[in-house]
């Protein structure tokens, strides 16, 4: 069953057509990779699903429901979490607090409980404990009380994954999680993504330029160029698709 389904999506920035009638679907429990040359519109698609960009045309359905009717801050509670290509961490918060921000949509507690401490303390502790579990899962626990500033790029990307997991998502969208990693680390990350998918029952939409990892861990690969889908299929099928080789792999592989 398709968990995420986008149909005929068009996004324009002035004269630039970033997505030109894109159709694609992500099946439940799969790792679906979205690849394509720079400027193909991959990040733009993420931003459409996150409701940060308003498409000029098209549909987005998540688990059967119309996402375009949801406000941006309502996306997380629907079960969609993401990381950012260029990092979107909160500089002024510690690693732990950054991760706790991810639990926002799964927790309650406003001004009154916050100012009176006592009732909020228990839920605070629960969130902290869960955040520590997630950090441990991503081998980041030792950094919990550090500020984000000054940590290596690859670590920061992992912190974003931790934050995304805090919202207990069904769909996890990762925008180039392997950038800035060494070869060994990329392998590790690939294993981690698979484990997360299996352990947490996730569906993963993965944008990645690192072809080795994409081909190794994906169930399905969607290839984009100029805002459109030009091919899709299993890693093997895509690898041998002449159109893909011409458009993309031919240049880099």
């Amino acid at each position, binding site marked *: 069953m398709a968990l995420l389904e986008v149909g005929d999506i068009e996004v324009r920035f002035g004269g630039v057509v970033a997505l030109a009638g894109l159709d694609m679907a992500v099946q439940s429990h799969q790792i679906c990779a979205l690849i394509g040359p720079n400027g193909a519109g991959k990040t733009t698609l993420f931003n459409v699903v996150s409701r940060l960009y308003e498409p000029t045309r098209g549909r987005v359905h998540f688990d059967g429901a119309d996402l375009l009717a949801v406000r941006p801050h309502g996306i997380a509670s629907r079960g969609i979490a993401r990381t950012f290509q260029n990092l979107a961490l909160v500089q002024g918060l510690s690693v732990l607090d950054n991760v706790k921000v991810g639990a926002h949509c799964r927790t309650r507690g406003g*001004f009154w409980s*916050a100012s009176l401490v006592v009732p909020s303390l228990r839920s605070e502790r629960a969130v902290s404990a869960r955040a520590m579990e997630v950090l441990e899962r991503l081998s980041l626990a030792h950094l919990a009380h550090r500020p984000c500033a000054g940590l290596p790029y690859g670590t920061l990307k992992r912190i974003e994954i931790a934050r995304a997991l805090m919202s207990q998502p069904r769909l996890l969208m990762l925008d180039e999680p392997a950038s800035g990693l060494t070869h060994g680390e990329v392998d590790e990350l690939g294993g981690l993504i698979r484990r997360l998918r299996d352990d947490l029952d996730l569906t993963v939409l993965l944008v990645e330029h690192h072809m080795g990892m994409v081909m190794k861990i994906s169930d399905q690969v969607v290839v984009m160029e100029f805002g459109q889908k030009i091919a899709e299929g299993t890693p093997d099928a895509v690898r041998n698709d002449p159109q893909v080789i011409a458009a993309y792999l031919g240049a880099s592989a």
Partner: protein
Amino acid sequence: MTDRRPLDVLFRYGPVALMVVVGLVLPLTTSDYWLGRILLWIPLAIAALGLNLLTGFNGQISVGHFAFYGVGAYTCGLLVAKWDWPMGLAVLAAVVVCFVVGVVVGLPALRIKGLYLALVTLAVAVLFPDLVKHFESVTGGSSGLYITTPEMNSRGVVVERSIQILAPEGIDLSTEQWTFYLYLAVAIVAFIVVRNIVHSRVGRSMIAIRDNEVAAEVNGVNVAAVKVFTFGLSSALAGLGGAMFALWEAQLFPQSFTLGFSLVLLVAVVVGGPASVLGPALGAIFVGVFEDMIKPELPDELSAVTPLILGLSLVGLMLVAPGGIAGMARQLAARVQRSRPPAGPAKPSGDPISTQPSTT
């Protein structure tokens, strides 16, 4: 990080403890004249606390925050003077009114940002004294609002007397001493509430919005609601300060709430340390010492250029310590802690107070 060493505890709670102790001892060792002036630093600190929540923690700039102080002062003053409300209730009403006014002023902040928001708040600051003058029949205009209550004198004639905050029967404190303790208690509660908020889910949302609005939104934070709410809360705190000011002064003039004072409040926040909970208190003391103790001592030629002096020292401080006094103290604490040999066997470093510069 649970086993805190004594020095860590000292750095964490020392400044607060010191300020509370000084606050408790001060009224017993200071003349009533000075106490009457110094106790007005407390409302200023509360207003700065509110502004810091907005600007320091939420990243919304208000250069006209003293207007809310004025709204609080006049609301409280009018309720007591014209409708004989009890003081405590009038203060509460002022807080509520300022919350609502803050929300209304904060609404445009959803569409406009940074400099443009600063301009809106600037307009509010410029407009407020004029509004007070315009509605002269209610506010007394330039000739002032005298907060009085009817009282029977010794000859049985009812006369209007300036309100006074009197110590309850049996407590042997002067008006100044009693008011100081009362205001100190209010301030302590206000600071604790803000501290709790800053370290809560709401506080994390505020900081997330300040540093990365997209990240906040994607994680489910209703950015618009938090921004408007923070504006309201910040204004409510300024209004609380204003109401306390009104009750102590017992007379209000529009020229006490001009743009210049808004800028002084901003100076208090910046000097004290933006995004530090205790910073506004330090900043208010700094401003208070300057305005009440240093400025009157300056020769005439110099006192004309005090805004310049204040401005220059602000620029200087920002160059030396962008985190304000609180930031400076934190750096010092971090340095002392680093230079200490580790106690006991290898233990993970990273005390929250020295590693989270902008949340403590």
